[in-house]
């Protein structure tokens, strides 16, 4: 799947029509009145309890102000009261679509602090599980985006694909959302028989079926009309808001922690970091779909290169991090996740600060929403892939 070159306008432009309209308003020929529209916290487009205070003029959004915090569960405080085993399961619940990817930075941080060597097989299996989780996450956003734009059929196609991957992951971890499978030093246990074949099959199936999606959604004229040149986020704005992940890459920022600062064994694999130049909804979506292909490539390579051996390093019976501090960054499906851990040598951390990708990404939304239509707001919210649990923690 390649980015079609012919459908791109040379530069970003937001709503040339509404500016024509605006001149009429400015000259006093048309008197309008602004109205405050409260979107959320319960609204189908916000997938969660996200609230947006939009000031609208007709169907045009003049200002938009996001209100977050409806789902604040105080995880950063809670983890100070729990030991490290328990924290794994708490952190897994922050971003409920990518549990494995949340557990990873904690395991990495502890291993760094305690100087544990992780066996190679465990590292490869971590990559496989993390990438499968990334595909799950991206398919979820594929479905929610298409549902928000009113295309109901691709929604269920994505769920069909998710089901096979989820089944394979369930056979390893026993969970469908909150896996709780990574331990400092390795994995809870080795994968069961038949998992590798099932994983390979489920991932290949996604790739085989991508042309269907192309026909139904990305190649659809209405879809292009709704997303191309809509909700433009410039490279500079993306940098200044600290946007990361597929959204940043959709704005021509070529950045991926997996490649730039490889952790685990990501430097062993051959994969591309996709980025698109225009920063509109279509580009963000295109990056997301393309990343599914790259993740599938990584899973295939990792399965083929999987070495034998143990899956757990030498870890003391009681996990006690020595005094010190450590910062780990990983590439979460939604962007860069940073975990800053301070330990005072106890069984529980002194403080954990987590930089979640969705929080920074959401902060760019009001900037993008200005001077768009109400219908565009839905496309933009859908293309800013965020998970509310990840925003509020």
């Amino acid at each position, binding site marked *: 799947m390649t980015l079609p070159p012919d459908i791109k306008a040379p530069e970003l432009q937001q709503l040339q029509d509404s500016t024509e309209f605006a001149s009429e308003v400015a000259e006093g020929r048309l008197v309008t009145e602004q109205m405050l529209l409260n979107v959320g916290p319960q609204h*189908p487009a916000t997938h969660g309890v996200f609230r947006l205070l939009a000031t609208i003029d007709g169907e045009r959004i003049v200002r938009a102000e996001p209100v977050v915090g409806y789902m604040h569960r105080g995880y950063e405080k809670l983890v100070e009261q729990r030991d490290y085993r328990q924290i794994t399961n708490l952190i897994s619940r922050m971003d409920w679509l990518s549990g494995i990817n949340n557990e990873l930075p904690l395991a990495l941080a502890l291993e760094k602090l305690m100087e544990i060597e992780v066996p190679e097989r465990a590292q490869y299996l971590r990559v496989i599980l993390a990438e499968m989780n990334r595909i799950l996450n991206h398919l979820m956003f594929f479905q929610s985006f298409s549902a928000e*734009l009113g295309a*109901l059929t691709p929604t269920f*196609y994505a769920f069909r694909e998710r089901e096979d991957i989820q089944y394979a992951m369930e056979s390893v971890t026993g969970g469908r959302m909150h896996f709780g499978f990574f331990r400092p030093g390795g994995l809870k246990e080795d994968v069961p028989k038949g998992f590798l074949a099932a994983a390979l099959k489920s991932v290949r199936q996604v790739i085989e079926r991508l042309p269907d999606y192309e026909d139904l959604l990305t190649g659809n004229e209405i879809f292009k*009309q709704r997303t191309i040149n809509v909700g433009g986020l410039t490279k500079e704005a993306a940098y200044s808001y600290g946007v990361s992940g597929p959204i940043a890459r959709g704005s021509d920022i070529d950045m991926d922690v997996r490649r730039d600062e490889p952790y685990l064994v990501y430097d062993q694999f051959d994969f591309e970091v996709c980025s698109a130049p225009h920063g509109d909804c279509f580009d963000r979506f295109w990056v997301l779909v393309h990343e599914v292909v790259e993740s599938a490539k990584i899973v295939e390579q990792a399965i083929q290169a999987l070495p034998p051996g143990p899956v757990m390093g030498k870890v003391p019976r009681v996990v006690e991090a020595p005094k010190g501090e450590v910062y780990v960054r990983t590439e979460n499906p939604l962007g860069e996740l940073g975990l800053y851990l301070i330990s005072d040598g106890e069984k529980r951390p002194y403080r954990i600060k987590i930089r979640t990708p969705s929080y920074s990404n959401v902060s760019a939304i009001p900037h993008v929403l200005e001077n768009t*239509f109400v219908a565009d707001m839905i496309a933009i919210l859908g293309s800013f892939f965020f998970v509310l649990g990840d925003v509020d923690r």
Partner: protein
Amino acid sequence: MDIALTDWQILLVKVLVILVVVPVGALVGGYVLHKEMAHMQHRLGPMYAGGWHGWAQTLADGIKFAYKEDIIPASADRAVFSMAPAMIFVPVLMTYLVIPMDRSLIVEDLNVGLFYLLAIGSVGAIGVLMAGWSSANKYALIGALRSAGQLIAYELPIVLSAAAVAMLAGTLSVVQIVEAQDWPFILWPPGIGLALFMLFIVGAIAEMALPPFDMPVAESELITGPFTEYTGMRFIFGFFFAETAHMIAFAAIAATLFLGGYKPIVPWSPLEVIPGIVWFFVKTSFMVFLLLWIRFSFPRLREDQLQKFAWKFLIPVSLLLILATGAWILYV
């Protein structure tokens, strides 16, 4: 036994039949909608209610809605709010009065039948506007205004393509339009008929606010648009029943105007053995299937894009098609 019925009594019986047939048709339509959507999306759809393939599901849904509390928001305009569903549903019922299911199976063959159809079909928009305005809800208001704008834009392509059909048939009576179709208008005149048919379908989808032109109710943006505040039976009649019945009505109208209604699809005598009502139902079902197929295949357009599409493309094209039809009648 000799039963003599006055004209009024006959009319009453016919109207009662319509009052029974249309809601039942809407129920069946709702079931078909569920099943077609399910099969397109690799799902099963309702499977349990009633036994065989969940045939009673829409019935169960209807009963469930009858038990729901009927809520009228405190700040709503009560009279207008409670009247709006009727304003939407009754015109839809009234369209069925002039659709011929067979040569004589029609409530009233008006000599301005086609005109009546188009006129009554657009009255429902007033109901939608009433619902949106009286709900005292901003989402409902946006939905209602979109709906009104959409109606004005899409009434024209429908009327113009129907006008071309009237030109071809030389009459406004719906029965005589069917009689004029030796070959259905979709096939003959070649090209023009097909283009008119497509224009009519696009306009009909937009007027009914079905996807991909369902911006007035766009569930991911406006919850349910003008019907956001409605509950229970008012919701069912104003929204679900009206939508399904409207869809079937337009399918029947399209079958009548373009597919030859109750006549066989091609003028070949062995096909005339099949009764007209069967032809009519086959064609209407095909149209319903087509409308649902389109509905589940496309994403939703944006309101301004829809207006542009209507005024800058569809209306000029329909005017050109009227010219072409006129030329065809004059010179061919």
